[in-house]
């Protein structure tokens, strides 16, 4: 068993944005008290002692945590390479400077679209102009400018103008990440899933841009949607292989979406240390290695390449978290993915449900505080 090289610290589920493709749990308002600073500091130390090197600060919007600079400084002192994954909302020039001073290594700013109108509609808040300003601020403070656009049916036709915007901002990296259907994105998948025609056009637009700007220094990452593939993604590079997430309320998970899986009691950092969690907990051992696999994975010669795909996707589509990810062409339930794509082709008029406390309570039927 290797170390948990990647630790993702989801500091809060609170967020000023309301993106309908958010990967946070749909019932986020019902989830308990956030870890305090001391608890986070302990988690950082314990994971570092296990050999964690990459640290992501995410959320929700991690800038909402007033102790972010404290956590960043500790991370730097411990020898982590720390990454901030942010919408840019809650940031200003002084805060970028403070984070830099504290030792933050890297910032990724997300955009919802390339036009203010669509960006602000999808985000549920007038944030586009501020995001432009923050992208520039990041660069001004000596960081590479790294932009991320999450792509779905409502904005996929802007792919070319997203790349143009990034080039105009002199971005160093731009990531076009097709929506993965977890959390709110799963609820909204009927409205978010691009059609095959849209996907082909977007890929062509990306390639065209690459050819026209072959000498440009900006690097483009186009993350293809796995629903349109014939083999599953090597999700998390294998369950409990190198990735651990700690949620705002202290749950330790082998992936962002795992808390929805039934019948697994995931450990909480309030009750166990990271060494126990990583090595001994049922949650991290459940799908570790290959012994849990069913056919066709068990005897498949590609199992060491894709680890059977994504456990959450298997659960959401087939109702069995130990099944072969139905994205795989070898899965006996592969038709379930085709059904999802066919639904997208119908372009059902499904209204988008924005991620906010009101909709969270409506969907989960649970009481909760505003967040």
């Amino acid at each position, binding site marked *: 068993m290797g*170390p948990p090289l990647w630790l993702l610290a989801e500091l809060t589920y609170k967020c000023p944005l309301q993106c309908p493709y958010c990967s946070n749990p749909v019932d986020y308002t019902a989830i308990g008290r956030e870890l305090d600073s001391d608890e986070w500091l302990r988690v950082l130390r314990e994971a570092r002692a296990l*050999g964690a090197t990459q640290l992501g600060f995410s959320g929700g919007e991690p800038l909402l945590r007033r102790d972010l600079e404290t956590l960043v400084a500790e991370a730097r002192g411990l*020898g982590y390479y720390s990454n901030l994954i942010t919408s840019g909302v809650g940031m200003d020039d002084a805060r970028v400077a403070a984070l830099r001073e504290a030792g933050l*290594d*890297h910032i990724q700013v997300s955009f919802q679209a390339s036009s203010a109108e669509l960006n602000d509609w999808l985000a549920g808040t007038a944030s586009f102009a501020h995001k432009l300003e923050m992208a520039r601020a990041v660069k001004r403070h000596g960081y590479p400018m*790294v932009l991320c656009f999450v792509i779905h049916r409502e904005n996929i036709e802007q792919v070319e103008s997203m790349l143009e915007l990034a080039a105009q901002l002199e971005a160093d*990296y731009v990531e076009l990440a097709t929506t993965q259907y977890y959390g709110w994105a799963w609820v909204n998948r009927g409205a978010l899933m691009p059609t095959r025609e849209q996907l082909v056009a977007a890929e062509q637009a990306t390639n065209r841009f690459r050819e026209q700007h072959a000498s440009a220094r900006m690097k483009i990452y186009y993350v293809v949607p796995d629903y349109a593939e014939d083999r599953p993604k090597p999700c998390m590079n294998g369950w409990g292989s190198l990735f651990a997430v700690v949620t705002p309320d202290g749950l330790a998970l082998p992936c962002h979406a795992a808390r929805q899986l039934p019948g697994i009691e995931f450990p909480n950092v309030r009750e166990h240390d990271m060494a126990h969690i990583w090595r001994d907990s049922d949650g991290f051992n459940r799908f570790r290695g290959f012994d849990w696999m069913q056919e066709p994975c068990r005897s498949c010669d590609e199992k060491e390449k894709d680890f059977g795909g994504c456990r959450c996707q298997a659960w959401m589509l087939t109702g069995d978290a130990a099944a072969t990810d139905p994205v795989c062409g070898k899965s006996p339930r592969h038709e379930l993915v085709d059904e999802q794509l066919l639904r997208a082709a119908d372009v059902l008029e499904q209204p988008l449900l924005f991620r906010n406390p009101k909709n969270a309570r409506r969907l989960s039927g649970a009481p909760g505080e505003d967040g």
Partner: protein
Amino acid sequence: MSAALQMADRPALAPGYRFQWEAAQQAHVLLYPEGMVTLSGSAGEILKRCDGERSVEQICVDLEIAFPGADLRGDVLEFIADARDRGWLRVDG
């Protein structure tokens, strides 16, 4: 990208890269945004000396003193040129 390396060049880690010893892996590593390379012993010894102060010539001499008897000049030059082409090192004359 692949201009010939000069002995007077002074290689330094590129911005955004961090070089450190990892006890858990018993190896030097190179950290960068969302990634890590675990370095071999010899790669670690070379990168350790790429501090922007020492020239390629000085790095070679340093290594020859640290590891006497080894004929390593060719490998060192090849590694530094390769690390530069991968974007790990920035080379200023």
